[in-house]
């Protein structure tokens, strides 16, 4: 039975829409102050080198320089990192990638700061860089960190893999290579730091978890965290790339040396390319076995992830990848293993999808290959193998939360593009072009998994003008979670959405409610608001009962007001009463996310309790003369549980699809011998509006009982199955399989050329 709802499920306009669309909103890096100074970071000259000495005298003498800081100026712990703080704030004796910071400068102008950088003399002893993850795993490779180059190793084993492969009717085996994707947010890393006369430090810097950023700053500064305020929202895009510390600690260090003047750091695109975190390139070898009827029997996976110089979230990424490496299917026999490996190739870390992108191309491609060899329909084989709620997944655990895969596959089967695909495929625009249609499905864990505390918190404050200030730690990263919070609050408080104000990402104004990552912020923040709102209702009605001198049971919660008998009481009146009587006007809501009880041995945190699911159907057209691929149509079928805001969901589905297109066809940060060949957006190719196809979004709503109004999360899976779907559609069109992403025109052309040479006819 569905309740009648006023705001949930409605196409509510983004609260922050107008100011973003008109450009009225100032992002933090847009600000300038009269007495400001500029900060710059000296990066390493070599990907791997010993530092013998750092001389700053000349730089200090340059007129206009305010301070130059090195590792010697770090009052606290010289390191950061979300899981293992293995990345030095400022390198002292060794550099492990060209993104390593060695010194900080504050100066009167940006130009002087840049000049000062060139006057800092670092005496290096270059070492031979470790540039290949598998080479890094070998015994001969130099050890980049004291414990060796394998940062983490996860393993999941189930059933009897050898027996299953022996008894299988069909086995496919392939190796897949995935690119080093860049988040390519519009706003590069940057922000402000200022220290007031009392030594209170304010850092304004877009981030994905203000409280954790504050903790990392405090640790490096050996400073009372209560004396640091971090404002982390709004953000000009992050996608995981601002989950880790970006420049917050540099800002804080510089702010301590600028006599109270605000200091700004804003990375150029070129610096962001070198120093910013990227998506882990993976090499995935996969072997999959099935029976004649298409039932999956076994899957063997070996994934190696290049995490670059430091761990950041690399360990968690490989763990999530392995947890998802078998897709949303029930494969009884699995042997899965993943390595997260240090090299001198920049730094990899969190990025929308978090390892699932890299592995889903394996299992989904294999399903298509098996289906083709057995003459099965790609939807049939998937329907046959998916797990349903209450069934055992390939991880060997019973999935108790909502599972929408089957429904998404049914919706795919019935969508126009799939039903009429043969007709659409014929409608090529020129004779040498070929079209293909394919689909793929995937899933993505929501929240932190086992081993990490995961909680949500929100506060609601009644304001003098009768509005409610909803405060949630999770930042507005661009996805529209703030609007979702307002909808949840307005729904429960029974008020118009215009009565809700939302504030996010500010340690002085919002409670610690965890990260805006892991597809968790709608679920977590929404549920936190839904936990706090009844407390506000309680506060309102108790106060109303006192004001109106009636028993609580007679108080009615009406739209935008409260009432008893004939009398109506406005929120303003209630505020006034509370204010005069010095009573609190703010309530809080806290909760712990549901978790699985037992961790799968060796898995590094699997399984998750909640997953979002999604199926993509795509049509591509390949120009066989040049190898260019155009994605013409995308159908995105998410299971996000109950959809809080269809418009917001479409925004995620469309943005995710385009990001997935970029990953599959265009994007890669090229690093050779530890040096970046990719410099900026001239050579890092992301899709433009001309590469953006028609994207349709058809949600199936498999409601999650524990979620706010049945919602789950969708922020990441929206970019995942489209990757193998495009790869398979290229195959459907041309007969060429690409195993090495991105599938650039050159790679596709060469595959076609190879087919011609071997005289292979396209299969269809």
């Amino acid at each position, binding site marked *: 039975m569905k309740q009648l709802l006023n705001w949930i499920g409605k196409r509510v306009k983004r609260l922050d829409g107008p100011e973003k669309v008109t450009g009225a909103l100032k992002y933090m890096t847009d600000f300038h102050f009269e007495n400001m100074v500029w900060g710059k970071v000296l990066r390493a000259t070599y990907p791997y080198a010993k530092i013998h000495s750092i001389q700053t005298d000349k730089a200090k003498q340059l007129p206009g320089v305010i301070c130059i800081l090195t590792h010697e100026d770090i009052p606290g712990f010289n390191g950061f990192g979300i899981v293992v703080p293995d990345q030095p704030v400022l390198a002292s004796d060794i550099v492990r990638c060209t993104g390593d910071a060695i010194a900080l400068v504050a100066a009167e*102008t940006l130009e002087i700061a840049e000049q000062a950088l060139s006057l800092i003399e670092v005496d290096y002893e270059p070492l031979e860089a470790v540039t290949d993850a598998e080479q890094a795993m070998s015994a001969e490779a130099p050890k980049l960190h004291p414990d060796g180059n394998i940062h983490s190793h996860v393993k999941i084993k189930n059933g009897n893999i050898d027996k299953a492969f022996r008894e299988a009717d069909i086995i496919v085996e392939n190796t897949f290579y995935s690119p080093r994707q860049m988040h390519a947010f519009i706003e590069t890393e940057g922000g402000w730091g200022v220290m007031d006369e009392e030594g209170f430090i304010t850092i304004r810097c877009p981030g994905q978890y203000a409280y954790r950023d504050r903790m990392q700053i405090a640790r490096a500064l050996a400073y009372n965290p209560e004396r640091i305020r971090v404002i982390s929202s709004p953000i000009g895009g992050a996608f995981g790339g601002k989950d880790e510390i970006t420049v917050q600690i540099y800002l804080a260090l510089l702010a301590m040396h600028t006599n109270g003047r605000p200091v700004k750091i804003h990375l150029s695109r070129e610096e962001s390319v070198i120093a910013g975190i990227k998506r882990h390139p993976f090499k995935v070898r996969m072997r999959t076995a099935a029976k004649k009827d298409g039932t999956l029997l076994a899957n063997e996976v070996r994934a190696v992830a290049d995490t670059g110089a430091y761990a950041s979230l690399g360990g968690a990424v490989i763990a999530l990848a392995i947890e998802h490496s078998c897709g949303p299917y029930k494969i009884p026999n699995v042997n899965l293993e993943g390595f997260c490996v240090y090299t001198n190739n920049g730094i990899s870390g969190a990025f929308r999808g978090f390892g699932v992108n890299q592995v889903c191309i394996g299992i989904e491609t294999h399903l298509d290959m098996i289906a083709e060899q057995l003459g099965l329909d790609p939807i049939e084989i998937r329907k046959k193998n998916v797990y349903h709620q209450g069934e055992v997944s390939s991880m060997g655990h019973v999935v108790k939360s909502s599972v929408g895969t089957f429904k998404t596959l049914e919706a795919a089967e019935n969508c126009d593009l799939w039903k009429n695909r043969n007709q659409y495929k014929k409608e090529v625009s020129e*004779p*040498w072009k070929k079209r293909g249609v394919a689909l793929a499905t995937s899933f993505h864990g929501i929240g932190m998994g086992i081993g990490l505390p995961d909680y949500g918190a929100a506060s609601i404050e009644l304001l003098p003008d009768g509005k409610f200030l909803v405060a949630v730690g999770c930042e507005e990263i661009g996805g529209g979670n703030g609007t979702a919070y307002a909808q949840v609050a307005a729904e429960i408080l029974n008020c118009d959405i215009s009565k809700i104000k939302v504030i996010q990402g500010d340690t002085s104004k919002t409670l610690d409610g965890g990260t805006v990552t892991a597809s968790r912020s709608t679920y977590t923040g929404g549920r936190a608001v839904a936990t706090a709102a009844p407390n506000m209702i309680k506060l309102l009605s108790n106060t109303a009962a006192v004001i109106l001198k009636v028993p609580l049971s007679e108080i009615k919660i009406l739209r935008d007001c409260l009432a008893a008998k004939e009398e109506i009481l406005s929120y303003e009146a209630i505020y006034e009463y509370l204010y005069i009587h010095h009573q609190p006007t703010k309530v809080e809501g806290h909760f712990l996310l549901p978790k699985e009880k037992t961790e799968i041995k060796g898995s590094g945190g699997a399984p998750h309790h909640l997953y979002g699911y999604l199926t993509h159907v795509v049509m591509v057209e390949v120009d066989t*003369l*040049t190898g*260019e691929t155009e994605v013409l149509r995308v159908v995105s079928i998410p299971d996000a549980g109950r959809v809080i805001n269809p418009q917001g969901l479409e925004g995620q589905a469309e943005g995710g699809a385009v990001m997935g297109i970029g990953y599959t066809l*265009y994007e890669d940060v*090229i690093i050779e011998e530890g040096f970046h060949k990719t410099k900026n957006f001239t050579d890092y190719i992301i899709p*433009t509006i001309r590469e953006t196809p028609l994207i349709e979004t058809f949600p199936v709503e498999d409601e999650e009982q524990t979620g706010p109004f049945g919602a789950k999360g969708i922020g990441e899976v929206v970019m995942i199955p489209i990757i193998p779907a495009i790869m398979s559609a290229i195959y459907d069109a041309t007969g060429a399989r690409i195993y090495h992403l991105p599938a650039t025109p050159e790679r596709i*052309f060469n595959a076609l050329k190879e087919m011609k040479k071997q005289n292979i006819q396209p299969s269809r």
Partner: protein
Amino acid sequence: MLVSEIEIITPISVNDCLLLLSKNETEHRIIAGGTDAVVRMKEGKWRPSAWINIKGLKDLRYIKEKNGAIHIGPLTTHTDIIHSPLLQKRADVLVEACREVGAVQMQNMGTIGGNIGTASPAGDTIPALYVLEASIELQSINSSRIIPINQLFTGPGRTVIKPNEMITNIIIKPQTENEIGIFQKLGPRKAQSISIVNVAIMLSMASNRECLGGKIAFGSVAPTIIRAKKCEALLSLNPLTDDIIENIAKVAWKEVMPITDGRATAEYRRDMASALLERGLFRLMRRWENK
């Protein structure tokens, strides 16, 4: 030279500008739309002591017919060219090339003079200018000369333009009724991309698919733009049926001398020279038949 130390001088007339250039006491450089100049300044590659900002010289922004030729002022933007009815009719290949430059913002700011001045082997308007047999007028304070476009460039980023000279006119031969042109570009994506290979083709047609002759100019496959003379010679041998087109296109890879860079390997570029010529001729024939 620091960016903040670079002077900006804005001449008020062409003559004023030429006078400034003639002094050439310090290292000056012209800036028109700035879409190449600013990028290279930021990269530290172009740091003149002064920018001579000619963007306001209205006298250099024109498209006009004169003595059977079309004159295009160097400050004409790509957008101006795209919207010119005259050029749409008599120089479609140039209009198409301008449409492929960057995206709308770049087309609004970037000028044809700047595209020539940068002398990139990947510059998109240059192959079109080759097949339109463009001549470039270079003026200095006391002289003026006209250089055929195929003599203007000496290598990547290098031209015969002297420090005291500037481009003041671009003269092209308009297409006749039976001439049709096309510009084909392969970039890493559809908009905002530098050509991996590009080609401008202009054909003079008789009836049906009979071709009287034509010109083919490739970009991004050699140190400068190059004409594909062998392919051109084959154009008029047989009617341009699909088979013949394929055969002519195959010859293209022999005419190019590409290099490997971040965008593509030399081998792929070679293959693409043929592919773009083939695609271009196919498309041209279809257009011709629908004309």
